[in-house]
């Protein structure tokens, strides 16, 4: 197995990234609940070990495609709070100059090819990024994040077929959080999800998505092998979505119980688990972890305050970026 994150600096960085995602989401939720955020958003809370375990196995040049539940991937691939909150609020300094919002948030300079609001919509894009890598003789890898709900889309099977035929360096990362919007996954997915990938001859793994070290170790190995032309790969990451499908999905007992949510939050939380590991292994003290958490909370608050006061884009930007090379499409 290639080198997974093993030293204390790497471990602390993974912990920090998971807490940054949770903190970002807690603030985003508050912005929604206090009606300071336009539109709505889909929380990544509970799934942090997936994005962080995978993205910590990648280099900046590696590509990812993200989903409507994409804040976690964005943070994990290296984005900053300030530009992220600006994007969430539709401000000029957002990563997409306020044109994308929560569902299209991405720090493109770190290899994030965008969050996609069509379920399964980015599967071709990630596969195409891997095609470029192979065609141009690069060794970058592409990771395609999507949910269990997206496994019902036909596009996945079309692109896995091509990726397998052409040995493309792409990793299909299925975040199985148990629910396809408001419906249990078992009601929408026949048979085994990993077996579907295996039908194309794609090596498929299932991993505990609440265990950041397990996710990172597996991904690190697969990334190294994909760089050598052994791809594609498929990973099903068993995880859980703490919030509803979106922030407005409050009363959800018709599709899942509070007891179930409580169990995942108290007994399988990826941050609580990894924090305990860090302390048991002597990699950090309680005080150090509390200090890190406080620093992240302060960063987030400062970024939120900044974004709330930041400028909206000038109205003249409305017809900018419609076409590359044309400043104003309607001029």
């Amino acid at each position, binding site marked *: 197995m290639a080198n997974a994150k093993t030293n204390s600096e790497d471990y602390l960085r993974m912990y920090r990234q998971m807490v940054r995602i949770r903190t970002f989401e807690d603030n985003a939720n508050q912005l929604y609940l206090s009606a300071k955020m336009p539109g709505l958003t889909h929380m990544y809370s509970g799934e942090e070990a997936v994005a962080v375990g995978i993205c910590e196995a990648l280099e900046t040049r590696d590509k990812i495609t993200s989903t409507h539940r994409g804040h976690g991937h964005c943070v994990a691939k290296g984005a900053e709070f300030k530009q992220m909150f600006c994007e969430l609020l539709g401000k000029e300094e957002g990563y997409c100059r306020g044109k994308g919002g929560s569902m299209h948030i991405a720090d493109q300079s770190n290899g994030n090819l965008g969050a996609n609001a069509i379920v399964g*919509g980015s599967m071709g894009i990630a596969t195409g*990024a891997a095609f470029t*890598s192979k065609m141009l003789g690069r060794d970058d890898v592409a990771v395609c994040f999507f949910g269990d709900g997206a496994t019902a889309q036909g596009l996945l099977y079309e692109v896995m077929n091509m990726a397998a*035929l052409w040995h493309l360096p792409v990793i299909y990362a299925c975040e199985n959080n148990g629910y396809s919007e408001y419906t249990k996954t078992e009601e929408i997915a026949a048979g085994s999800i990993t077996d579907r990938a295996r039908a194309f001859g794609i090596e498929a793994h299932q991993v505990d998505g609440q265990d950041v070290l397990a996710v990172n170790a597996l991904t690190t190995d697969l990334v190294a092998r994909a760089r050598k032309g052994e791809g594609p790969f498929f990973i099903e990451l068993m995880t859980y979505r703490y919030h509803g499908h979106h922030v407005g999905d409050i009363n959800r007992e018709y599709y899942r119980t509070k007891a179930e949510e409580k169990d995942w939050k108290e007994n399988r939380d990826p941050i609580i688990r990894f924090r305990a590991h860090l302390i048991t292994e002597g990699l950090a003290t309680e005080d150090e972890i509390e200090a890190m958490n406080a620093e992240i909370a302060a960063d987030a608050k400062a970024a939120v305050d900044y974004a709330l006061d930041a400028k909206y884009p000038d109205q003249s930007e409305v017809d900018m970026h419609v*076409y*590359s090379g044309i400043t104003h499409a309607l001029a």
Partner: protein
Amino acid sequence: MREITLSQAVNEALAEEMRRDDTVFIIGEDVAEAGTPFKVLSGLVEEFGAQRVVDTPICEPGFMGLAVGAAMTGTRPVVDLMFGDFIFLIMDQLCNQAAKTHYMSGGKLSVPLVLRTNMGATRRSAAQHSQSLHALVAHIPGLKVAMPSSAYEAKGLMKTAIRDNNPVVIFEDKLMYQDKAPVPEEEYLIPFGVANIKREGTDITLIGTSSMVQVCEKAADILAAEGISAEVIDPRTIVPLDEATLLASARKTSRVIVVDEGHQSYGVTGEIASRINEKAFYHLDAPVLRMGAMDVPIPFSPALEDITVPTPEGVAAKARMLVAGEMIDAA
């Protein structure tokens, strides 16, 4: 000047651009050894190899999506969609992904992609292999749409499309693949958004797209024999549209017929007619007429199919009525 077929012109354009830029590649169904059912791509795989002339499984959304991702990461795909009718299969990847990526990323990502496909009825291919669906694509901001009317345009517009940093859709009329036209040996490009005045006239303007340019020219011949002077204009690209040239002609002749092979309702003819009405109204002596394909699925029987598309005689008849003032009451 030498004359070559439209098919050869497209082939030459692709070969020249692939020699010029190693990142250009062709992808689609049976594009390599088969050279497409129309043999437009014959010989290219022999020169450029299977890595750059890529045969795919039959999965239009899959290879279209793959091409979008490839374009976003440093290559210039030319996607071959065997029949224009299959555009319905790729609508999400074309219209939700390719068309919007530049905008949603605030200008940070681009999709330099060409979608080559075809249009045109009267080939006895029935309702799913005969449609002219360019209006659907032209409706979506972020896409450019080119409609070559001869081998000369087919080559020059293709070369421009490949060098453009935006998604461009080129509709070739499949009945024109064997039509010859003068094409210079030396390199040339045709800029987008520049209409071509095919024939000057003073009494009426006939605006035609793709093969309807020939229909308009034949109609102009018929009219000339009767002493009616028709101006024929080929917009060459419908997005961007050279509105200024069309308006100048409308102001000069005061009568306009717009002829296009898409269905007449909610189509290109209506859009162009509307712009002329809005911006040249006081110069008009007659209502601007639309002549598109009949609003029925394209029938198989030759007896039925031939009456669904505009003909030179039909265009000449309408023009005659407009010039005689007979259509004014019908408005």
